[in-house]
């Protein structure tokens, strides 16, 4: 399992005497700002990828940017790795403690500092929950657009680290499109502001580079987010298909018709059956797949676009097209979708969520290939995903208590990711590489590209102490564990047409 770091191929630092580390950090923090006992640190052992576990040397809970800076400088001085953590909801093991690290939890920096409804911005600390921002600005008729499914719990700092997406990013963009200014602290204690209050800044666009950097470059201590006016009208259409291929074709046809839905989601039979049993959303469980297509905007326009979406779905072979009767049913349709992950518990004790993205036109081929791989590995796969973005979430169903099933699930997951790359896509659309997909990075990127990533890291973090062993594999790791690089499309899946 990848939660075991390997000092031959991972950049891991020799742990120092914990007493020495605690003595160095103690004077920098509030009286309750350090967790040093194992019982207290248990909660930080893992993030949303619960199969991976590790124990930090100590947990630091800074109250402000100055304390963040003090911890980072002390760690730089002692040569101790630092793993920053938001709410710990990430799905790729990005906040997994590496051996002997200081786990830097930003959870106490959780204040909304200011809201400017006229400029449509808010200044927030990294520990603020994603949904808390939208809740706080709703009184001004505004909302913060990126809405990962963990939005109730996940923090905005974590969203920046992962460049989080969500159901609505097809229309409203990812985190990178919805933030404009970051205050950061580097491992050497430098405090820098990236971006600004205007729409651009002189020099290189470092705000974009920081976003999605998975805690490897610097620690974010303040974020200015952009807010959008809440649409006056939203409506959702449910289209059922007797064939997954037809559903995939309908997705491409909707976009080709010039429509950008606020959300366009797909569930296959296995997923929608479980979701229906869990939520009773009224899904047609006899369908091979359903699409949920949400449109928002002005009242009359939503109606006109709904009619066009319905027509496109029917042309693509939909067996049933239903409009949510009212706001309650619209919410119910979405509740079913959002409850699809927990609903998997009905199908199997454990599931492993994959996060590749593919070009939309490849959906039908990829879904068929996943079905074939599922058969070959002897594990069922349910599909619930952001079809409009081509962002797949195959859920591999397994039982961790059965011998060898975890390993088979990991192998099947790896094969699906490699399929995504071969199809011209990517190994991760929104969950991040973290620790989980570190080996698949070797499939997507060449040695020169990986060296460039390390050079970028070194420009921010010359000693390499921030979140080591995550996101970017060493070339030694690729040589040892990485699958063959299929960048130019010459290795795996040679029988598939690709670009």
């Amino acid at each position, binding site marked *: 399992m990848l939660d075991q770091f390997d000092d031959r191929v991972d950049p891991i630092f020799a742990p120092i005497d914990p007493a020495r580390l605690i003595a160095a950090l103690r004077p920098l923090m509030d009286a309750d700002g350090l967790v040093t006992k194992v019982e207290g640190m248990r909660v930080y052992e893992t993030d949303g990828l619960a199969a991976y576990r590790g124990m930090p040397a100590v947990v630091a809970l800074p109250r402000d940017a100055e304390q963040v800076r003090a911890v980072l400088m002390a760690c730089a001085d002692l040569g101790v790795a630092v793993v920053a953590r938001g709410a710990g909801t990430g799905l790729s093991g990005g906040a997994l403690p590496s051996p002997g690290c200081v786990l830097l939890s930003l959870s106490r920096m959780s204040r909304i500092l200011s809201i400017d409804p006229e400029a*449509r911005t808010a200044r927030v600390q990294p520990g603020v929950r994603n949904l808390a921002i939208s809740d706080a600005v709703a009184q001004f008729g505004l909302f913060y657009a990126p809405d990962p499914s963990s939005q109730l719990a996940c923090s905005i700092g974590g969203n920046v680290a992962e460049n989080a997406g969500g159901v609505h990013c097809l229309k409203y963009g990812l985190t990178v499109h919805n933030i404009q200014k970051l205050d950061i602290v580097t491992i050497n204690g430098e405090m820098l502001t990236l971006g600004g209050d205007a729409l*651009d800044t002189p020099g*290189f666009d470092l705000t*974009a580079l920081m976003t999605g950097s998975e805690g490897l*470059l610097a620690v974010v201590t303040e974020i200015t987010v952009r807010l959008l006016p809440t649409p006056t009208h939203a409506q959702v259409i449910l289209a059922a298909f007797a064939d997954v291929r037809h559903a995939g074709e309908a997705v491409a046809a909707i976009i080709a018709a010039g429509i950008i839905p606020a959300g366009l989601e797909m569930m296959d039979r296995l997923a929608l059956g479980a979701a229906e049993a869990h939520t009773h959303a009224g899904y047609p469980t006899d369908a091979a797949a359903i699409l949920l297509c949400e449109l928002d905007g002005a009242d009359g*326009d939503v109606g006109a676009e709904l009619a066009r979406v319905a027509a496109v779905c029917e042309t693509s072979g939909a067996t049933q097209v239903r409009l949510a009767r009212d706001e309650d049913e619209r919410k119910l349709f979405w509740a079913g979708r959002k409850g699809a992950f927990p609903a998997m518990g009905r199908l199997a004790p454990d599931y492993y969520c994959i996060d590749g993205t593919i070009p939309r036109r490849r959906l039908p081929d990829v879904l068929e290939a996943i079905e074939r791989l599922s058969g070959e590995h002897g594990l069922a796969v349910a599909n619930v995903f952001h079809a409009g973005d081509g962002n797949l979430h195959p859920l591999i169903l397994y039982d961790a208590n059965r011998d060898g099933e975890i390993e088979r699930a990991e192998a099947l997951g790896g094969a699906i990711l490699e399929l995504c790359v071969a199809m011209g*896509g990517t190994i991760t659309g929104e969950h991040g590489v973290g620790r989980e997909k570190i080996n698949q990075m070797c499939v997507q990127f060449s040695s020169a590209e990986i060296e460039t990533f390390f050079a970028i890291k070194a420009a921010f973090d010359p000693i390499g102490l921030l979140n080591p062993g995550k996101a970017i594999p060493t070339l030694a790791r690729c040589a040892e564990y990485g699958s063959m690089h299929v960048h130019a499309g010459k290795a795996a899946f040679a029988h598939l047409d690709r670009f």
Partner: protein
Amino acid sequence: MFTRERRRLLTSTASRSTDRTEALTKAVRAAAAEARPLCIVGGDTKAFHGRAAVGERLEMAGHQGVVDYEPSELVITARAGTPLLQIEALLARNTQMLAFEPPILGPTSTLGGVVASGFSGSRRPFAGAVRDSVLGVTVLNGKGEALRLGGTVFKNVAGFDGFRPMAGSLGCLGVLLEISIRVAPSPAAETSRSFELDWPRAQAMITALMRRPVPLSGAAHDGHRLHLRLSGAVGAVEAMAAEIGGEATPEGFWSDLRHRRLGPLAQPRLWRLSVPRTATLPELPGLWLRDWAGGEIWLDSEAPSERIRTIASDVGGHATLYRGARTGESVFTPLPDGLFALHRRLKTAFDPAGIFNPGRMYEGL
């Protein structure tokens, strides 16, 4: 059905397709070996911008052609030297467009040039900047290695987003070979209304409108009048136009603004201020033209440079001497020391010998 359409589209541009990757790679490697500076040139329509170019010209113009375009993917991938006019014509045939509305300063203007300059038009506050549309690039680093950063899909978080800072980097990080850009459907309806309002009143009107979900795609003030462009679904555009009233905007206003021909935009010495759109700036004699809902100000003024930089920085913005810098005058607002040092380290990460457009953005970068 898509495959056939795609083939047709690609064939129609094939006659103008040339891959010069090999020659460009050789040129970069030779320059790197001798630490010889290169001046990367696309369509040569923006030579006036930035600090003086030094080094041997590396011509991108021949490296052109659309590599992949499938309308239902909302992505176009083209070589950096592909003329923007050609790309826009291809997109228009499929009722699509570049959302960031780039200025095209001449028929030779290339995709790579507009990405490197980071120029975005009036849609910027509503539809995002160049960097928001870039999905991935293939770029030659200073060792002559072709790096593929990002990709062709919208949701992609594998590896650092090294491709986004390419937008607006003025060629200081590498030679863009291929660029994948997200495209947007063209709006079904578009109209423009104009109002005789001084800037403070115009600003108040923009601010009030932008608090609501309105189909605004442009808001510009020419010193006397506010022009509002509405784009989107027919019903929304018609309803909004009826609500705000006003008069028709003069023919050609938005395209003259976009392609930088309007009023002060033609002046030989011109400032560009980027400020929060809700900011209040002090009066300064000169010609003012505001785009980006007030966030981008074009200023033709003989006021001292320090004064102009100060009025921008006082409100959290910055000022660029877009054109007509005198010898020794800085073009871009200087960066704080720590940030500049980080820029230099990043430059070295991509371009260790410092051969790409040295000094074009800042001295020593």
